[in-house]
Structure formats: C-alpha cells, structure tokens
C-alpha cells in the first residue's frame, strides 16, 4: 500500500480508466443514486430526443441545439468522471491488497499436539478452528494467538516492513490474515470466516463498494433535491409567463437555464468528496469502518488521550538525584549507577546515563566488578546488585523502606533513623507533586536518597493541544498515575483536564458523562479492557497492534498504532465537511451570474428592454446561453482536484474560518462565473462556434 501513497491526483493510471468509467456510470441505476445528476441526465436525454426530431423535420439553429446537448451530456460525464477518479485511487490500493489475499493452505489442528495437523484450504476455515502457523507460513485468516509467540511481517496491511511480535495473552494477540510469520510458531484461533476478514473489509472500504451515504451527506442530498425542485418551478413556469408576454422560449433554452441553475457543481462532486475523505484516511494508514465515523471525527468535542506514549514519551527518565543529609550527590550517583548497570529497562539505562553525564561516573562492567544482578520482581518491587559483600537496591519508596525495616530486624543492625525515613518521604512527596516518580536507593541498609524519574512530555505536544483548543476541542489525559502526579503532567502538557487512576470503568463513565452533555468523544485504545470505552466513544480508534476485541469495538483502526494520530483524524473529518460546505456555497452563489447571462438572452426577442440586464455584455443570446452551460460543465472538472484534496483546515476558530471560507467560496462563487462566462463567450465567439 505504501507505493500508492505517492499516487498523485493527476496520475494517468487513474485518469485513463476513469474516462471509461465515466461512460459506464451513465447506467441509470448508478445515476439514480445522485438526484441532481440524475435529473440532468434525464433532461439531457430529453433534449437529445428533441434534437433528433429537429434533425429529421429540419428545425432551426440546429448547430446551437447540438452544442447545448453535447455540453449537457458533458456535465453528466464530468460528474461521473469525478466519482471515477475518486474511486480509482481506492481501486489501486485495493488491487495491492488483493494480491496478499492469495489462496493459502492452513494447518488445521485437531488436538493440542501442534505437530498433528491436516492441510486444508484457507477459505474453508470456520470461526473457532485452531490452526498452527509456523515460520514462513502465511496466516490463513484473522485470529487470536492462543499459544506461542512469533515475529510477524505485517507489511501487507501496514506497509511497514519491520516485523512485529504477536503472542498469546495480553494486548498483542491479534493476527491478521494475509500476514506472514517470520520466525517461531503460533497457534491461532480463527475469528473471522472467509470473506469477512480484515483484509476483505479493507478492500471493500477502499474500493468504496460498501459506501453508504453518511447522515450529513443524506441531509445535503435532501437540500440539493429541494433546490432542484425550486428551480423546476422557476423554469417550468417561464413558458407560460412568456406566452402572456407574447413570446416563445425553446425547450432547449429552458433546459439550459434549468441545468445551470440547479446545484450541479456540488451534485457532481458530492460523492467524490466522500470517497476522497475516506481515502485520505486510508493514505494516512487509518481505516474508518464507516463514513459516519469520519464525519463524527469532525464533530468531536472531547479527545481522550492516554498519557503514556501519546502525551509523554513511553519511558520515564532519571533527571535528578536527591541525597538525604550526610550523603553526597556523588555517593548517591555512584550507588544508583551500580544498582542500574544490569537494568535493561529504559528507566535503568537513563540512571546510568545521568550518573555519567552529570557526575562523571563512567559506566562500569558488571563482570569485572564480580557483581551479581538482582532483578526486579513483583514481590520485592526492587532491583539492584550484590558486590563485594555489599548490597545496593533501588525501588519504589515504600518497598525500599520495608526492605530497610526487614533488614534491620534480620541483621540486628542499627535501625534507619526515623529522621532519615521522614526525609526520604518528604523528598518522595515533592517529586510526586512535580509529576515525577521517586525511586529510593539503599546501600547495606543505609538510605542514601531518591532518584527523580520524570515523565518526559513529547516535544511540540503543548502547541498541539493549544491548536486543538482553538479548534474548540477539549483534551482529557487518561493515566493510571495518582491525581497529584497526573495534575503536574497535565499542567506541563497543557491538556484541559485529566482522569487519574483511570480504570476501564471510570474511563467508560467519563465518556458517558461527556456524551450526556451533548459532546462527541474520541479516544484510542488497544487493550481488551479498552473495548467497552472504544465502543461507547463516538470515534474509537483501535490500534492495529491491539486485541481482537479492541479492534472490533472501535470504528477506526490505526494501522500504524500511533495514538497521536487522533488529531489528524479529527482534521480529516473537518476537512470533509468543510469541502462539502464550500462547494455547496460556491454552487449556489454561481446562480447569480448564470441568471444574468441567460435571462436577458431568453427574453430579448420579445422584451428588448431586458438587454439592460446583460451586464457581462455577452455577444449574442445564443453565445450567452452556450457560455453559461459550458462554464457550468467545466467548473466541475476544474473543481475535481479541490474536491479530492479537500479544503484546507486551519485551527483559527470557527468565526475566522467561516469568514475566510465565505469570502473565498461565497463571494468567489458570485464573482468567478461572471469572469468565466465572459471569457468563454469571448472565446466561442472568436472561434465562431455561434
């Protein structure tokens, strides 16, 4: 899929087949989905019949009628073309996905023994079957790892070639059909039947095959159909008015007026805008399960963001060493570094680095020190080293204090003085308040001090949140930390609110609370315990690395598993709605100029006084009408790139955004056709078309 990212809008590979599709879409059944264009097609057919009749009976101004009919059909074809181009981009992606869905053999297990399997066709697998997938095998269908651990190449769906780990239990147990196991083996319980796998759904989504009209699109279609009806009334009553005045208006002229007045521009581009919106997400490696979700993204009022990985870097880092009285920083740094030498966690490494950078203590080699590493256990909640008869431990403050107490009882040595304990606790409290995590360090029962582990807020995230605030979106940080720590990080990151000591239950109730206030909530999650919240949220983005439950609960899946993408998803949703609004406004505003082109031309024969309305100074009535209809058709083509790319969203607040867009698409929509029609009039008169 990565190669399709580079496909530009004006790619010949998309444009050429789209021309063929534009004709194929003349099928009335496909036209009927779009009320405005359907009406245009009907009147085009009508005028074609009239033209043929005139050809036989020898009517007047056949050349003019012929050109009008041609441009009427072009209007329909251009609309079809726009849709075909939008779909074409999806089709290219679907094609590359289909290649991964080759026929696979599955090793179906009958019992627990993983060597006893029979080869069956991948498509014959049923939900609940358990298969074994070994190194080099393609995973036959979507499923959940029930046993084993393996590295899997998921490039087929993510475009990312670095292998990922999939293992049973936990949050990395989901595997996707079509991806390849690179090493080791896993037992997979099948969770999707053939035809409804993740890749199948992806293909359907990017092809737009299952595209349903979204709520806003339905409402807009109603408006456009209503406006079409209004202009049916406005034009259908003209012959009668004209006959009262003693004049006659040819049907072809009425049709031309009608087609230019009805909102063909937005009518033609509406479905292309919708398809392009989904496509923009796909290019962004996010799959929206429905267009409704994309629209909802634009409406989001509250964004729930996990602290770790989204707001802060995944790992905390040591930033400071706080010795107790009578201990030097150097002494503490030495002990802290020794205790962390064998600690491969990012926190541990950051302590070694801090000691080296700030206190010039070079990292030492465990082996040459004859040190033995004491790893972290859930029981002791400490780690450290034993060397030369002395023991150094670092760990959670309570754990270290308990260790000191126990040690005192066991060895009968002097108790840690109450004063030192109080001092350690005071420092720990201070660090907690600042949003950090304190780690106490003890050497041979002697409390040395505290390491300050700090959550590092990601660079630029504060600006991001300020931008969201300008967009009118409230950000809420979700964290398992205690309220004190959470508050400090929330302040540093600039989020509007936080939920501390979060559990799946209070996460869910927070979403419900926000929704009760009428707000739309977006969140992302990956774990099974996120599933209820993901399902409850209006926009639930499941990480592709997440569990099957999470992926099914969300209405979007992020293939890159990058939770910060929520912000862009919201922007894409807004862009989709804005593009629709902008082109609708433009389309309606265009009508003013078209009236001024056609009305004087239409009535000039019997009311020459109305020539005064010909403010554009168009050459002849015929050139005026033809110019209007040509402009009307060409503007569709001219706006295809905009409808595919979308109107740019700027986080400047709704008022400023609206005045800007109103100026461009409203005022612009009034002025552009005056210029355009005049130019076309000059051109067609110059080359003698009329």
């Amino acid at each position, binding site marked *: 899929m990565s190669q399709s990212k580079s496909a530009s809008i004006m790619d010949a590979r998309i444009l050429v087949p789209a021309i063929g599709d534009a004709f194929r879409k003349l099928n009335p059944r496909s036209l009927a989905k779009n009320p405005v264009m359907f009406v245009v097609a009907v009147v085009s057919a009508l005028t074609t019949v009239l033209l043929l009749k005139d050809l036989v009976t020898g009517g007047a101004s056949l050349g003019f009628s012929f050109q009008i009919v041609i441009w009427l059909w072009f209007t329909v074809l251009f609309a079809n073309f726009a849709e075909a181009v939008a779909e074409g981009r999806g089709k290219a992606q679907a094609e590359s996905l289909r290649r991964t869905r080759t026929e696979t053999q599955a090793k179906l297990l009958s019992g627990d023994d993983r060597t006893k399997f029979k080869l069956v066709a991948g498509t014959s697998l049923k939900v609940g079957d358990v298969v074994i997938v070994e190194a080099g095998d393609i995973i036959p269908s979507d499923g959940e790892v029930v046993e084993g651990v393996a590295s899997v190449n998921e490039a087929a769906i993510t475009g990312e070639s670095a292998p990922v780990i999939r293992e049973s239990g936990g949050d990395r147990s989901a595997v996707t059909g079509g991806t390849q196991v690179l090493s080791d083996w896993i037992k997979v319980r099948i969770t999707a039947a053939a035809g409804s796998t993740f890749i199948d759904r992806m293909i359907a989504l990017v092809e737009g095959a299952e595209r349903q009209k979204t709520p806003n699109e339905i409402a807009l279609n109603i408006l456009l159909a209503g406006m079409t009806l*209004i202009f049916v*009334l406005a034009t259908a009553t003209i012959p009668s*008015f004209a006959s009262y005045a003693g004049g006659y208006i040819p049907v072809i002229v009425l049709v031309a007026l009608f087609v230019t007045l009805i909102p063909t521009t937005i009518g033609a581009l509406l479905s292309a805008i919708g398809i392009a919106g989904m496509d923009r997400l796909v290019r962004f490696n996010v799959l929206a399960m429905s267009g409704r979700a994309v629209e909802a993204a634009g409406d989001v009022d509250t964004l729930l963001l996990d602290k770790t990985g989204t707001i802060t870097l995944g790992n905390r880092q040591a930033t400071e060493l706080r010795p107790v009285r009578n201990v030097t920083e150097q002494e503490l740094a030495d002990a802290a570094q020794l205790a962390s030498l064998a600690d491969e966690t990012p926190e541990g490494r950051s302590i070694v680095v801090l000691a080296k950078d700030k206190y010039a203590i070079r990292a030492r080699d465990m082996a040459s020190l004859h040190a033995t590493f004491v790893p972290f256990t859930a029981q002791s909640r400490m780690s450290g080293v034993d060397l030369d008869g002395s023991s150094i431990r670092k760990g959670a403050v309570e754990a270290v204090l308990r260790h000191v107490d126990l040690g005192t009882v066991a060895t009968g040595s002097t108790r840690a003085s109450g004063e030192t304990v109080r001092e350690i606790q005071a420092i720990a409290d201070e660090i907690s308040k600042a949003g950090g995590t304190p780690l106490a360090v003890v050497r041979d029962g002697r409390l040395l001090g505290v390491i300050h582990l700090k959550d590092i807020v990601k660079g630029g995230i504060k600006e991001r949140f300020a931008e969201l605030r300008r967009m009118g979106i409230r950000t809420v940080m979700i964290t398992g930390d205690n309220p004190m720590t959470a508050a400090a990080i929330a302040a540093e990151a600039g989020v509007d609110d936080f939920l501390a000591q979060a559990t799946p239950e209070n996460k869910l109730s927070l979403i419900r609370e926000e929704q009760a206030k009428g707000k739309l909530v977006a969140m992302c999650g990956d774990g099974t315990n996120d599933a209820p919240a993901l399902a409850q949220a209006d926009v639930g983005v499941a990480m592709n690395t997440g569990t099957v439950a999470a992926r099914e609960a969300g209405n979007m899946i992020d293939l890159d598993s990058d939770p910060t993408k929520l912000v862009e998803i919201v922007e894409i949703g*807004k862009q989709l709605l804005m593009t629709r*609004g902008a082109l609708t406004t433009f389309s309606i505003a265009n009508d003013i100029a078209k009236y001024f082109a056609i009305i004087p031309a239409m009535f000039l024969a019997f009311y020459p*006084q*109305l020539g005064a309305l010909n403010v554009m100074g168009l050459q002849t009535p015929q050139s005026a009408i033809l110019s209007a209809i040509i402009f009307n058709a060409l503007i569709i083509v001219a706006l295809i790139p905009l409808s595919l790319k979308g109107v740019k969203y700027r986080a400047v607040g709704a008022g400023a955004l609206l005045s800007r867009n109103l100026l461009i698409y409203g005022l612009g929509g009034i002025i552009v056709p005056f210029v355009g029609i005049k130019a076309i009039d000059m051109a067609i008169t110059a080359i003698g078309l009329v």
Partner: protein
Amino acid sequence: MTLNGMTLNGMTLNGWLQILVFCGIIIALVKPLGGYMTRVFNGDRTFLSPVLRPIERGLYRLAGTSEREDQHWTAYAAGMLFFNLAGFLVLYLLQRLQGSLPFNPEGMAAVGPELAFNTAASFVTNTNWQNYGGESTMSYLTQMVGLAVQNFVSAATGIAVAVALIRGFARASGKSIGNFWVDMTRSTLYVLLPLCIVLTMAYVALGVPQTLGAYVSATTLEGAQQSIAVGPVASQLAIKMLGTNGGGFFNANSAHPFENPDAISNLIQMVSIFAIGAAMTNVFGRMVGNQRQGWAILSTMGVLFLAGVAVCYWAEAAGNPLVHALGLEGGNMEGKEVRFGIPLSALFAVITTAASCGAVNAMHGSFTALGGLIPLINMELGEVVIGGVGAGFYGILLFVVLAIFVAGLMVGRTPEYLGKKIEAKEVKMAVLAILCLPGVMLTFTAISVVLPSAVASVGNAGPHGFSEILYAYTSAAANNGSAFGGLSGNTPWFNITIGLAMLIGRFMIIIPALAIAGSLVTKKTVPASAGTFPTDGVLFVGLLVGVILIVGGLTFFPALALGPIVEHFAMIQSQTF
C-alpha cells in the same frame, strides 16, 4: 436651509428622519415587549396577572384543558389545525347567513360561496386578502364576531407556533413543545387584547370612529345626499395592525381618512405592525438564554428592511421621467395620500409587505416599477423581514436552518444552531416549507396568465398586468393580503385559487415548522466551543441576508424580470403600460 431643502434624487433629509424615528421606536420597544412576552409564555407572573390570571384559569376550566399538560409536536399541530378549521367554518357560515343574523343595520345580503370561502381562508390565515369592500359587503356581526375574532386568533396562532419552535431550540432532550391551547390563550389574553385596548383608545382620541350605529347621512355642498360609512372602526384598526392582519374596515384601508386620520395615527399604525414581530426576536433570545441571538436575527431583518425602504423611497421620490418630460417636477404622487406624502407612503408600503400585514395607505399598483418591486420581493422572500406576528419569526428560522446547514459545514462540523444539530429531518422540513411558497406563487400565476377568463380580470396591459396577477398570488401565499390594485379578484377562479394559495402558504409552513420544533426538542444541546460557528455576530447576519436573498429571491428572478424589471427599463425608455 431648511431640512426639506436638502434633497438627494428627490429624497429629503426630513423623509429619512421620519424613517429613522420609526426605526428608533421599534428598537426601543423590542426589549420591554420581548421581556413581557417571555414572562407570559413561560407562565411567569406579570403586572397584568392579578386581573387576567383568574380569567385565564376560568377559560381552561371551561375548556377542560390542563395548562400543565405539554404536548408532543403532533398533538400541538393537531390542536392548531382543529382550532383553525373550526374558525374557518364559523366564519364561512357567518358570511353565508349574515342576512338573517342580527347586527346588520345596513341589511347586507349573504356573501356568495366562493367569496365566502376566499374571505374565510383569508382571515383564518392572517392574510386578510379582501376581494370585497368591507363597508358594502359585511354586516357588523360578520365584521366583529367573524373577522375581528379571526384577526385575534389567527395572530395568536402565529405567535403560538413561533413560541413552540423557540422551545424546540431552548429545551433539550425533551418531547413536548408546549401546549397549543395555553399558548393561544396567553397570546390573546396577555398580549393582543391589552395592547388593542390601549391602541383603540388612542385611535378614538385621534378621531377614528367607533360606533355600532348606522351609516351617517350628510348633505353635500351641492345639496346631494351622501351616506358616510362608519362603524366599530377603531377596535378593528387596532387588531388589524397589531396582529399584522391588514384587513381594512373600509375598502380604502388605511388610506381612508377615518381609518388613518393623520401623521400620528399613521406612525402608531406603522409601529404596531412591527412591534410584536420585532419583539419576538427578543423572546427568542431570552428563551434560548442569549439575547444577542435575538438581536442578530433582528439585525438581519433590519438590513433587508432598510434596503427595501431605501430602494422604494428612492424610486418613488425620483418619480417618473415620462411625467418629468411633461414639465411636472417631483416624485411619484400617483395613488398616494397628500397627508402622508412620498416618504411615509413608501415606508408604509415596505412595512406592510415586510410584515405580512397588507394594510395600505397608498395604492401599490401606482408605485413606480421599482417602488412596486420592493413590496413584491418582500413577500416573495416569504415574509421574513419582521413578518407576520409569529409567522415572520418561524419563517426566518427556516432560512436560518438552511443558512446554518450550508455555511455551518464550512467550519468543519455537523451544522448546529444554538447547540442543536441540524440534520436530515430539519433540512427536509425547512426545504419543504421554503419550496411551497414559490410552488404556490409561480404555479398559480403561470396558470392564470394563460387562462383567458383570468386574464380578463387584469386591469392593465403588458408587464404591469402580469405584475398584478403575480402580486395577487404572492400576497396570498405569503399571507400578506395587500393588493396591487387593477386586478378584479372577485371571480370564482381567483376567489378559489387565491383562497387555496393562502391556506397552503400558511399551513404548509406551520406544520414543517412544528415538525422541526418536535425534532429539535428531542436533541441534546451541545455546549458552544471555539469550534462552534458563532451565530450572534455580523458574519452570521451577512450570511443570513445572503441566503435569504439568493434562495428566496433567485427563484423569482425570471418572473420579476417579466414584470416590474422590464417595466422599469421600459419606463426609462419612455414606455408605460
């Protein structure tokens, strides 16, 4: 230099000062009247409660209604339709049977069936289109029990519907939009009746007749006998203006010296046409908890109104070049009363057509082409510039729904107004309502102009005759009731079709409006944020003006081009019709 000495194209500073004084009075009335009406419709105590509350409660007991019982929109609409149907039948029968009913000193005969249908439809729909001369057709009983009662309740119906729609925005996650019977009773009892009593007194003091006696006989200077029509004029006049009904006691309406004696009575009449409609915007602002929202709507109306006044006044003051060529200076005084002059006639014409009133103090058919174009446009926009009491407000909210839906998308959110999301159902209903006006106006005009029997009723040739028919159906469907003159509308064809146009133009807008209220009231109110499109500023006003002009106005461009517009260009080229 005197104030009258400074002129611009015939317009005088004095003329503009009179227009501005009028605007100033309306703006000053908006808050107090709006505050009072809000209390009334919220069921709060007002200074009139000690007197009116017992009457109100008595009425509910009599009718067996519980004022606490709120209605779903369908029940509200059903009550409204039932009430109006009953009123329609009573009015029809009164006219048909007036010959044998009391209070008929002049012995008026029964009204014919088509005319009775037309008049019943006309007064039930708050249109007051009159295909008859009041003083020569209707008995006192018909005028008072029939027409005057409908003048009250049709106005009250409009106000009730507007309040119900406002509740749709103001309430959240509910089901009911109020009780039609209660809203109806309160608008009549607390709003229309007290104001009418005060206004009647004022008119009587200014010399408007108020009597149940027979017409006065006088001997003229030449010694001829003349019967001078009088009657309960002042009370009729009060509600005709306040309720934007417009049906005159006399055929000449407010151009008649008994129905509008001087400049002061003229000012009071103009103010009372706009008072409730303008205050409705404030009721809205208060009910949704932000008065600025109301002012924004009023500003939109104000912009459209002043633009109309400017064009109309300018066109009338500039006069007719053909007359100037004959050596006659000055503006167009044809069809105008000398005691009002050009500015007050132009102002009155714009007010009465902006507000769906239809009372006139000058003959619109005698205006210049452009001067007459403004009243037409006002009505074609759907009477949303202040509009009929209540009706103008729910009318403009339909345009708000459309404007918000189209432009609201451009801020990148599902469009919302006052925290309520505008979705398919609202758009469908708004489009339906907005579609029905041009549907009725253009279709009936299109049929009539090719129907020989209908064309025979036209008084003038060419585009002016066309304008007469277009004006008639436009005025009817917009529930305005003013006429362009020249057209003899009392024929079976016009009586029936104009009657239908009035009914469609009224109820095919009310029902969608109530449906929108019913849909909105169930929705949650989304709190406003920086991402919400602000609807209380200049931007919104500009947008709404644009949408009203484009959606409401463009529909009629071809028809207008063949009527007043071509007439205007013809006039410039020295041709009249």
